[in-house]
């Protein structure tokens, strides 16, 4: 069995490089027919995490579709809409989350090239940027509160607090995922499946993080640049 001697590198090649022998051959996706396969010594497919994260993103998109369409309807149908003055610190948030998208991409690519230490470093940097983002969003809340603008002050502020809070919760979820991955960078997986699982999880986390970035850009534009 190949599993004993496989380095991370080979695993990566087997899964990411070789499309034909990857998890999706055959009519069904699972390739281990009848339990007597050759090359079937591991069955874990990273496609599971990839599919899972896209499905999860679809549902989060629907949540924000509901909330943003409420925003648009509420804005158009009433005469009590007072636009907020944008807290300047949101530019910081936006810049930070954009940069964090780049760092997690670098981190993911390092993992694919089996450069474990680089992977860990960029991942940690991403997590730090994530924390800075959350802190910066909180600063924006404090800023508004100092001006006496709270959730119920006017509909625009209600939506601002709501969007940033719901998005922020999803960012916190992303940070939990990053923390989990960081805890796993040190511990070398001794089984092929464990290693694959780690790569699959890292890829899914990267996709999710990019999504959070794009989502924030959309919300930011909608909140302050959409008339």
């Amino acid at each position, binding site marked *: 069995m190949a599993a004993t001697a496989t380095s991370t590198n080979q695993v990566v090649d087997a899964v990411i490089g070789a499309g034909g022998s990857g998890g999706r051959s055959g009519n069904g996706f699972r390739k281990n*027919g009848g339990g007597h396969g050759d090359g079937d010594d*591991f069955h874990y497919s990273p496609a*599971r995490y990839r599919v899972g994260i896209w499905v999860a993103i679809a549902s989060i998109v*629907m949540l924000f*579709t509901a909330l943003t369409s409420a925003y648009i*309807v*509420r804005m158009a149908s009433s005469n009590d809409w007072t636009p907020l003055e944008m807290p300047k610190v949101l530019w910081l948030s936006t810049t930070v989350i954009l940069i964090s998208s780049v760092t997690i991409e670098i981190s993911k690519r390092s993992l694919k090239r089996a450069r474990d230490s680089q992977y860990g470093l960029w991942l940690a940097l991403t997590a730090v940027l994530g924390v800075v983002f959350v802190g910066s969003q909180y600063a924006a809340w404090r800023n508004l509160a100092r001006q006496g603008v709270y959730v119920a002050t006017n509909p625009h502020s209600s939506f601002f607090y709501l969007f940033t809070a719901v998005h922020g919760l999803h960012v916190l979820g992303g940070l939990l995922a990053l923390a989990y991955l960081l805890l796993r960078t040190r511990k070398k997986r001794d089984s092929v499946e464990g290693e694959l699982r780690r790569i699959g999880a890292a890829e899914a986390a990267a996709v999710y993080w990019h999504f959070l970035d794009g989502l924030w850009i959309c919300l930011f534009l909608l909140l302050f640049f959409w008339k």
Partner: protein
Amino acid sequence: MAEAATHGEVHRHPAPTSFIRKYIFSIDHKIIGIQYILLALTSVIIGMIMSVLMRINLSWPGTHIKILETLFPQGAPGGVMSGEFYLSLVTMHGTMMVFFVLTTAPQGGFGNYFLPIQIGADDMAFPFLNMMSFWVTFVGFIVLVLAIFAEGNATVGGWFTSLGASWAGGSGTVGPIGGWTGYPPLSALGKVAGPGQGAGVNLWIISIAIFCVGSLLGALNFITTLLNMRTRGMSLMRMPLTCWAWFTTAILALLSFPVLLGGGILLLLDRIAGTSFFIPGGLYVSGAPVPLHTGGSPLLWQHLFWFFGHPEVYIAILPGMGATSHILSTFARKPIFGYRAMVFAIFAIGMLGFFVWGHHMFMSGMSPYSAVAFSILTLSIGVPSAIKTFNWLGTLWGARIRFTTPMLFALGFVSLFVAGGITGLVLGQTSLDFFFHDTYFVTAHFHLVMGVASIFGMFAATYFWFPKMFGRMMHEGMGKLHFWVTFLGVYAIFIPFHAMGMLGMPRRYSNFGEYEFLKNAHGLVLFVTIAAIVTVIVQLLFYFNFIWSIFKGKKAPNDNPWEATTLEWTIPSPPPHDNFAGIVPTVYRGPYEFSVPGAPNDYIMQTEPEGAAVQAGLGDTSGNGGNGHKH
């Protein structure tokens, strides 16, 4: 190491040994499925008790019910239900049934148990999320039950009242009085809007929001599992129709529950944070102005709610359609008529379901042009529905039907789906809906098609899969009696509802005594009540049969007592922890190969290799396919 890796997939998680890990916090999809079924069986009892209480109140107003006096001394002083008490029964009956019965049992219950097995997987894609999905749903259930007592019990209500103005409880109802649709502004204002609208509504919203999260976790799992975990040879077009139904349902849940969740968050903020998403300005309630709110739109909630609400109808019934297709084919001993058409129809019904929410709002003052668009889209759902119905009839045509209990319930499903669906064509037209809106005609329509038909699908599924789940058969005699009384009973309840609706009897009213034009309907009301009580009592027989059969039922004669073809019937009953005991099945053919000419038996398992069956048939003279030589 190699060995560990090999077994990594097959036994991805080892069989648990402790009781808690095995039966309570289990990550085994089969246990989770049973947990969902038990949750539904519990919730449905609460829902049925509430419907009986409502019927008693309608037929015999002023009845003294001792237990109500004990439990809810304020809402039912002297054991007599108040009008508000009745309204809260309406709300909680609907919420309990729609969310915790019709959404849990068909999808979370049977889907969880059988989807992985039918596609040849050893578990769901994310077993831990699967466990979370059940327990989150369970917390939602507890919160909803809490809503009953937060309003119904002064002591429990007192705990909540201290949380703030919108949390005032203990008003003597059994929950909110605004119906399961929770329309603002009355649902957004707090106790000023009436008894039950304080803590009851807050807990109701929180319960639904928690339920949404649980359903989303489940849907995520279903979709990923189906896309990613099918065994070798299990192409999409070889899946049993049940799997197609669960898959479509999961997509609907995935895309519609987030919208309800969003709406719920906005409604809760209106109540506890003072925002005005749904509360318009200048509002007067009970003669007093509502301060501090301006500019909100109550219609916005209706759009968000029904964007979820209509797909929810299909979330309830599609799994029933899947089970019915599966069971009809099995007991008709014929391939399902038009497999591909069935797949496309089920998908079309699901997708069209996202574009028809406006038909719940014809009376909201929407533009007549949008109403016409919604009306046309609504009526077009009749096309895939008719395709399904005719294909079911085509499956039965010329068949030598085995009238087992599951088959009877599947046939009952077809009957109820047609009977309930046909009035959808009436209500889907704006001009007719203007008359029927908010009458018992609507109640009849959705109870038949969404409530009872779905439940019949689940009864069929229960009787059909029981031997697989527990290794014993349910009692056929009790099952048949259960079927006939229930079948006649539900028609006896809901056909008169249509007549009452045509008379103009409005839904949700607790008392019709003062309405001269409804005097003649009293006999019908009484008849319905008696039919309802008989129907509810016979469900006790089902519960008895279910529990008795688990322990004392006749042992299933073999692993495939119905002579069915799909993968779950290739494995022991009940299935081992990892379903296929380490041997991953290979699928060679479609799911409904019954009465294939030339085959030795009148059914061919999906795992039978191509050609093998015919070969065996030629060699085996005792086979009923005899001398066939063509496949």
